């Protein structure tokens, strides 16, 4: 399989690229900085004897045509697109600068949608392809933290739902995950709490589920229950969950 991983230089994306390379797939790593992508590509090629390349692109303002040409030229096609990159902001709790707010929406929603849109013809033509997106448990219910981030992730999830509807029966499997807390730099530098898992565990599950059901799922799975409770919590109780 030829897989493109957007956001492959760190955290979940890097772990996912590792699982894919280990399973013998060809991988194209995409993120903003070649200084981080190059070591990942070298490591995976050396350890798994896999074909791993990289391309720089910025989700905040992607040149999607260039990215698509780069991918197709170097890999000669693609079978899977993993939209993993995401951006959070500590200031995202009510009052933030306009540029920062727009950036959150660009990186988490506009950029991903525009890249998917560019690769859609290739994925549809393929006949047996995968489109996988990563959202967040922060998008379960609107809260006073991660307000814009959660909204953008919810928007991305909605787009994936629409894509699933559009691509149904056509051979492109669409999967979306609401990821729980993972031990990556996105969580900051505090000691990881009890709910935090290693990104490798989530990545392994994503690869294992590639042949599995389409649609939305929680990873780790136990977030399903937590999300259900959060969703159903009556307003008088929910409104107190403010920090």
């Amino acid at each position, binding site marked *: 399989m030829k897989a493109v991983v957007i956001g492959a230089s760190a955290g979940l994306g890097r772990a996912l690229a590792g699982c894919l390379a280990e399973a013998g797939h060809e991988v194209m790593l995409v993120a903003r900085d070649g200084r981080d992508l190059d070591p990942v590509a070298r490591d995976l090629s*050396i350890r798994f004897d896999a074909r791993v390349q990289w391309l720089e692109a910025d989700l905040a303002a992607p040149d999607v045509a260039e990215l698509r040409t780069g991918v197709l030229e170097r890999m000669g096609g693609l079978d899977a697109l993993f939209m993993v990159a995401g951006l959070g902001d500590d200031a995202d709790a009510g009052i933030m600068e306009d540029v920062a707010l727009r950036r959150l929406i660009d990186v988490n929603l506009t950029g991903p949608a525009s890249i998917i849109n560019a690769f859609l013809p290739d994925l549809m033509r393929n006949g047996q392809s995968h489109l996988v997106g990563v959202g967040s448990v922060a998008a379960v219910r609107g809260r006073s933290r991660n307000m814009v981030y959660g909204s953008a992730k919810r928007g991305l999830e909605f787009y994936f739902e629409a894509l699933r509807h559009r691509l149904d029966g056509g051979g492109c499997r669409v999967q979306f995950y609401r990821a729980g807390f993972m031990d990556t730099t996105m969580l900051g*530098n505090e000691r990881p709490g009890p709910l935090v898992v290693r990104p490798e565990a989530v990545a392994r599950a994503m690869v294992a589920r590639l042949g599995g059901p389409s649609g939305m799922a929680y990873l780790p799975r136990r977030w399903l229950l937590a999300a259900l409770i959060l969703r159903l919590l009556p307003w008088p109780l929910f409104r107190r969950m403010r920090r």
Partner: protein
Amino acid sequence: MTVPARRLFHCLGFGESALGWRESPDRYRFFDRMPQGACIPMGAGLSLAGASFGEGVRSVEMRRFDRILDFDPVQGAITVEAGITLGRLFEFLAPRGWLVAVQPGYPDITVGGCVAGNVHGKNPLAHGCFGRWVTALELAHPAHGRLRLSADERPDLLELTIGGFGLTGWILSVTLRLLPLPGGPVVTEPVKVDSLEQAAEILAVRKDGADLLYSWHDLAMPGRSGAGLVFVGRHLDEPKVAAIPGRCRALDQDRRALPVGVMNRAGIAVLNRMQAWRWRGTKSQDAAAATFPFAANPEYFYLYGRNGFIEHQTLIPWDMAEAYIARLRHLLDRHSVTPGLCVMKPFGGAPCLLRFEGDGLSLAIEVARGRAALALFADLDALDVELGCRANILKDARLPAAAVAAQYSGLETFRSRLLAFDPDRLMQSSLSRRIGL
């Protein structure tokens, strides 16, 4: 970019603690910025002294930079990012028939920590210390950017960085020469000795040829003769692929020991009996178990009292070995202190700057912290100076500046070269401040 978190750091054994900041970056753009205030690189934080943290200092953890950048399976060379652990590296190398020549006994230790500490392995006489196997590295320093160091590029800075306690900046990547890994097991044959002196004699003559050479002693028995075992290990060359390390339990620097130390004289005597019995016969281990003996029993470190333990390792010129041992025995009795561990190893190489390296016999003791232990160690400092010995700076969390100054003729050179490279002294740790750097 993330905000560093406030954190109370301890070194293993609680010998040194400090309230500082912790940050764990994973992208190279981190090193583009000029940090505010003092920083120090951190590997796994497994040093026995406060080498990778300090009061108000920002500890920058390197563990997320852990990739393999280049591997030459023909010549036996590898380039890795400095945050990779010895265990992970072993997992990659062993099935391919290669081995890092010098490895301390715990798989979570990072390659960066090994370079900055110029650590030693199982036979420092035959294999030297870690720095001997480093052919090149990349360093990042806020005032200088990214620098390549090798025998041809800034060799002076390379010399300062190997055994430089992280004070020259962040080691980003390291190129190492490797040793072929024999396929067979490591067969260790214990030789019974009645005293430390007898072991020292054996270590002096059995120097070469062994892949593993050290002695272990019981100092709890009356008379403190130091009866024990000299371990001579050989790696058999059989066409079998070596095992990869099993899962090891993490050593927790923050975990307090048992409230009452088992490591009093009676407790130690019992433990020593058990150890001696366990180790009595010839032992055949796979390469992983022989490389990382501590991986199997991290609990050992929690047996000390709530104060934890302190270690003193000293490098004794061969002709002073007998005198040192006699004086040590006397001091142990005078302070009524019984070491929970006493290990000797023959050393080689040449002394340089602040490195724990050079011809001689290394003797390490570990004791439960307390007033008596501190008094004993103060006397050992004086003894070291008197007999021309040098203490391992990275292992002794209380070693005072005066002792370092008296024992290391390279201290002034180290200081002046460090100041010339970094006049603002951006990198600082509890250790660097304690020894007056």
